[in-house]
């Protein structure tokens, strides 16, 4: 469903993403991990068609994202790391706007918008301006809006940040159900526990290069009993910072 081949992005002499290759099948939840500044967000932007690659290509649902951008965008949904919405639109109006942008028929919107708001427990707030929403409510609104056009691929950048435990559990269940229904989820996260519980495969990126790509079981091979966090830190060199604690 998502095919990334030789994807490279350079900013001047700095290589943010270096020859990335990925092939994510339909229905998979793929976790994309890496330390800050590893090139994850740059990759997400290239997959979502927001940033042109210096080399390589991205295909979503068989469409070249940079050649047939608008068609590819119709089949995708993007949940950014910060859920900025129009403060002067109500929740319902925001969803209505997104629905129209994605060409969702009005009858479908009239049925789906209340359902989605209900599912994310936003129904009582649907008529309120988004400026009065908390961070978590905005996050849920953006998630709901992204499900309105039933995208084949959902790109999620830290989708659970700011959600209360109940909402986080709900969202995780929704992701699993979407995967079961054949939707593909590409998820960037720093919360390794989420990646461990949700993702079918994970990719770990460091300094623009993919250093690991496999199922959790395969990554754990020979290191039984270790958590994803340990594997992640051994790959990214996180242990070296333990000496810094003396400054506390």
């Amino acid at each position, binding site marked *: 469903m998502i095919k990334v081949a030789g994807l490279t992005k350079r*900013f001047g002499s700095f290589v943010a993403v270096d020859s990335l290759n990925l092939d994510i099948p339909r229905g998979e939840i793929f976790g994309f991990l890496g330390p800050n500044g590893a090139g994850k967000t740059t990759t997400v*932007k290239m997959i*979502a*068609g*927001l*940033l*042109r690659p210096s080399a390589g290509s991205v295909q979503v649902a068989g469409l070249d994202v940079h050649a047939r951008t*608008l*068609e590819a*965008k*119709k089949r*995708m949904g*993007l949940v*950014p790391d*910060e859920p*900025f*919405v*129009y403060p*002067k*639109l*109500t929740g*319902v*109006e925001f969803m*209505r*706007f*997104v629905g*129209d*942008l*994605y*060409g969702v028929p*009005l009858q479908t*919107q*009239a049925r789906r*918008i*209340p359902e989605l*708001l209900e599912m994310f427990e936003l*129904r009582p707030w*649907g*008529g*309120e*301006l988004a*400026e*009065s929403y908390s961070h978590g409510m905005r996050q849920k609104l953006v998630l709901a809006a992204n499900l309105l056009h039933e995208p084949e691929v959902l790109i999620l950048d830290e989708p659970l940040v700011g959600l209360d435990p109940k909402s986080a559990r709900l969202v995780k269940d929704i992701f699993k159900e979407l995967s079961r229904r054949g939707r593909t989820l590409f998820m960037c996260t720093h919360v390794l526990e989420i990646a461990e519980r949700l993702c079918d495969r994970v990719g770990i990126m460091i300094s623009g290069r993919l250093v690991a790509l496999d199922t959790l079981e395969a990554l754990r091979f020979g290191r039984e009993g270790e958590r994803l966090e340990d594997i992640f830190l051994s790959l990214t060199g996180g242990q070296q910072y333990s000496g810094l604690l003396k400054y506390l």
Partner: protein
Amino acid sequence: MRLLAVLLERKARCGFNSLRELTPWEWARNAAFAAAGFFMLMGLHHGFLRLLRFLDGVPLIGPLLIWKLTAVALLSTFSMVALSSVLISLTTLFYSFDLPFLMKAPLPEPVVFAEKSLESAFFSSWMLLLVLLPFLFALGEVRGLPWTFYAAFGWLWIPFALLAASIGMGFTLALMRLFPSSRTRDALWLLSSLSLAGVYVLLRLSEPERLARPDILQRVADYLRYLQAPTAPALPSWWLALALQSFDGVRPSGAAIFWGQSALLTGSAATVYAGLLWIAGKTYGEAYSGAQESARSGRSQEVLPTPESRLAARLSSWGLIDGQQALRFAASFWKDRRTFFRDVRHWSQMALVLALMAVYLFSVRNLPLDTPDLKNLVAFLNIAVAGFVISSLGLRFTFPAISMEGRAFWVTRCSPQGLGALMAGKFLFHWIPMVLLSMTLIVVSNRLLRADPFISWLSAGTVFVMTATLCGMGVGFGALFPRFNTTNIHQIESSAGGFVYMAAAIGYIALTIALEVLPVQMHFQQRFGISRGWDAAALGLCALGLLLLNAAAFLGPWLLGRRHLEHYEEK
């Protein structure tokens, strides 16, 4: 006091760091801004100098006239500072971006209030001071006042501005404490804007230019006693006027008056400000807390067709436009309409635009023009004035339109709506009201001036096209210089992009007028009976020139802006 000093020092450091981080381009841009501002102030000074010299030359009552005018100017300044303070303190005292941090810190609330109130007082008064300075320098020059006059003004301005700003801040604080809701904030904002617009219209309707006309001045002489009487003696503007007047020797015992009035002004400012701080100590915390609450609006949750989507569906059913594209376009237009009219900052601007229109037409009506030819000439030159009004409104409304997408820009950026469609939606949304306004201005002006049919049609047609081009330029330059992280419209319009847009707009207007001079000259030659007829070739060249100019002025920034937005994520 120590904590206040810490807060003020951070402000100074931020300012210093901003200066240190300026790029050469930003230095050049700021220098250009400063130079343009300086020349404007010099122009004002020149105008004031001429007016005051003329008034000074009026036998017997010259000095009285001058000081009456000064008292009126100070009274207006005092009122404007107080009104501005109502508007500005609402943001600085309750919605400033750093307030959540400051209120969380272990700082006493009166300290936070003191810092924010000084900021409000500064921002409410600095621009009015800039406008007042050319007047005072002209006054000092005409009346031959010593350097101590300027020093005294420099010192007394501080209590004067602080006192006026304290009144505004006290009003805001009281309202926010009594009615702590967003509705109050909106109502307060609107009321203040309407008051400002009202003051602006009233000032213009009072026809201040009549003071400079000798025939009116004879009537002024009849009011000699009125001139000698104090102007609002209970207000600090009169105290400041008296203190300044003491340097002129118009009244006896100048030194005593100066020290008396200075003490009155400084003491009152200190008392009122101290009182404000005391009240703030008791009420600011609760008022701030209340201001963070949003009133529940309970808008409809029904998903119904919008007027825009209905129109789009109708047009696409007639085969005029592509259905899906039309629906997206309609959605953008609807979203812009909703967000625009719900933003109370725009209501206040609309009130000021209506005031501007009234003043514009009133000024045209009052132009002292005697002959039909002069009226026609003015009607032609009125194209430039109307163009300037449209470009100024464009700077306020059209240019920030793309930036006002703000951090929610990702919504349209990720959607299947192209950036061209987004820009076209912004264009249409601003062009429709702008063309209605500009056509009203030009058609009514032409009627008031009794312009002949040729000039009327030429000016109406030009302004119609000019509005479209200036709106296109606004959207294009707005896309070329977007500021998605800035929520303050004033920062967007006073950015480098705003400066470039205004410079390009003024250049475009000047070129338009230059290209139309030839046909207008032929028309006047015909009126005067000295023409050999219309030169078709020259007219054709002018028309071609106008076509090319408008195409370049519209498409140039538009295409550059669109390309810039497409590559925005690269930045």
